[in-house]
């Protein structure tokens, strides 16, 4: 956290995501309550909050892994509704990295990375492989390309998962607790990859408890509790001068241990 070489922020006026009065229930449980959020192109947002606060549900609504029941969500001007064509289009442009990697164990690393470009983007195999190797090099594991996910460490698997998403050349990346399932010594390699990605100007929304990462790359930190956005601010202000009591309590719990 020592280096404060914060990345240059190039936030355009172009709206990437807009969520208006979004509500979602799991049965009778009101999991997202009146969410309003606008994300511009180039923004890097970190969402934090206690478990069960709806952070993951929120970002999973952005590519329709979860269905919201009320309100509107627009991603790049396309509304997420029951129209499968819209959902396909959004998923093509929005990459997602999961807590448990969700790599396909029956395919090699390279095949994992080329699957979607070949079948969704209809890219020729050779071209897809070339792009995949490029991104695998970027996450620093080109030499593992022909291995299977089961032969890699957790940190390596997560970096493959990031490369796999990047192969679709997304305009936005969603990270759903990408380091929560990793051993402590592997967290850094994944975070480094994510920092590099941020430095290249990728728009990203990241659910994480890595506050060092939030300070370093985020333009905005959002704190959620009980399905609501409680507080959002620039990282410096958010950490040094939290406004609500709930945020203060949460920060004291995760920072002082």
């Amino acid at each position, binding site marked *: 956290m020592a280096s404060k070489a914060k990345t240059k922020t190039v936030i355009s006026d172009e709206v990437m995501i807009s969520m208006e009065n979004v509500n979602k229930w799991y049965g009778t449980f009101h999991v997202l309550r009146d969410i309003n959020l606008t994300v511009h192109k180039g923004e890097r947002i970190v969402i934090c909050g206690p478990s069960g606060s709806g952070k993951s549900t929120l970002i999973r609504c952005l*590519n329709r*892994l979860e269905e919201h029941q009320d309100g509107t969500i627009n991603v790049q001007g396309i509304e997420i509704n*029951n*129209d*499968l*064509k819209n959902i*396909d289009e959004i*998923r*093509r442009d*929005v*990459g*997602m990295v*999961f807590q*448990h*990697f*969700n*790599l*396909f*164990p*029956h395919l090699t690393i390279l095949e994992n990375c080329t*699957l*979607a470009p070949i*079948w*969704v983007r209809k890219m020729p195999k050779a071209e897809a492989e070339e792009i995949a190797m490029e991104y695998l090099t970027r996450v620093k594991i080109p030499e593992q390309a022909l291995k*299977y*996910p*089961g*032969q890699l460490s957790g940190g390596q698997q997560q970096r493959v998962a990031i490369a*796999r*998403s990047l192969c*679709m050349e997304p305009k936005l990346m969603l990270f759903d607790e990408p380091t929560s399932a990793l051993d402590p010594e592997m967290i850094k390699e994944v975070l480094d990859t994510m920092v590099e990605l941020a430095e290249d100007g990728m728009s990203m929304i990241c659910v994480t408890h890595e506050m060092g990462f939030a300070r370093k790359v985020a333009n905005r930190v959002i704190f959620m509790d009980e399905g609501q956005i409680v507080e959002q601010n620039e990282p410096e202000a958010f950490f040094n001068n939290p406004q609500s009591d709930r945020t203060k309590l949460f920060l004291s719990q995760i920072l002082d241990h």
Partner: protein
Amino acid sequence: MANARDKNYEFVRREDAPILPPPATEAGITGWLWQNIFVSMADYTSIGAGIRSLLMAILSALILYFGGTQIYALIDFTIFSAVFSDPEGIKREACWTVDQGGVLPSGWHGACWPFVVAKQKFLLYGAYPAEDLWRVNLTGLVGLVGMVWVMIEQLPYRREVGAAMLSLYPLMAFILLTGGNSDAEFSNIGIWLVIGLAIISAGRLGKRGFLGPTFAEFATLIGFTGWVFLIFNAVRGVAAVDFGLEPIDTRDWGGLLITLVVAITGIVASLPLGIILALGRRSEMPVARLLSTIFIEFWRGIPLITVLFMASVMLPLFMPEGVNFDNLLRALIGVMLFSAAYMAEVIRGGLQAIDKGQYEGAQAMGLSYWQTMRLVILPQALTHVIPGIVNTFIGLFKDTTLVSIVGIFDLLGAAQSTIADPSWSSHVQALSVYVYVALLFFVFCFGMSRYSIYMENKLSKSRSH
């Protein structure tokens, strides 16, 4: 920071513990013996353990003894004591003992192979005309070569050969075995082909969203139905062409030919049908789910014998006058649907073992439902349930013997009818042919079992979890 080793702390290890060779019980031939043969007898630490070890030793000896005598009895019957030839052509008397008027010693007990050899044609082909046997042999040979080709990984064009085996080969087999030249009208087939094409184009249009969003959801299924239509009628068309082959009624088929035709058709058809049913049962569409569930529960709820009886006895009663389709075909369809229901449940088990994250990973990258299933979910699910799938295959293979009760002479049925031949009657007549049939069944079932184990090992080697 200074190295702790340099500082001579009492509590810091200065030298690594030496790497020692393993004890004799862990490695080498003695290790193997201890671990595999004497594992339960190795414990003399207490009187109880000693007695247990002793009992285990006695039990092992008994099992070896009884197992050994059984195996010896079988080998003795089939090889050492067996009669292999009948050079004088005296038929049944070749397998008679002195007491019965033959030449073999009193109390002789062995296989009468000349009898089985004499009935070989009937056991393998049934009443198929002798001058047309080349058609069966050619079908079998092409099938065998194709199958082995697909199984050996070093060979080139495996994918192409496999595709041909699933598309052209069944057609070829059908025409060679039945003779083709069916009565179907070409004009009639033409109309159905056009209808098939129309359904396919409707599916295509629907997929692009021209016919509304509700239709788009079912477009893939509709397109698929169209293809089934088209292919079915194309096959009907080819089957109606006159290739100059003598038509041979399936009533004349029999023996191993029937067993293999029923088993292979059942096996090849039940896998895709089972996959579709399993996916249907786990689908989010209530109609697909309900239909699949009803289908599966119906066919699992009735015994195969009932299915066969219904197909061959009851079905014709409900048919309009003059409409009559082949007895073997009806039995085939019955077996196919029956095994598809079992297969569906096996595959559903595999689908349930797949982590939800796999679906999400695929969906988040924009793969469609069918792409997700074909590229991500099914390859994993099917690998998980290879033992169950092969189990169903082997069960199906053996269940084909049930077709003999509706008057179709499969291998077992043919064997039974050879016993009725008095010119070979002897006290080992029935036993000889049954042992032969058992051996044939064993070869096929054991082959399937071994291949499945090979596949499992191969697939688990390629990815260590």
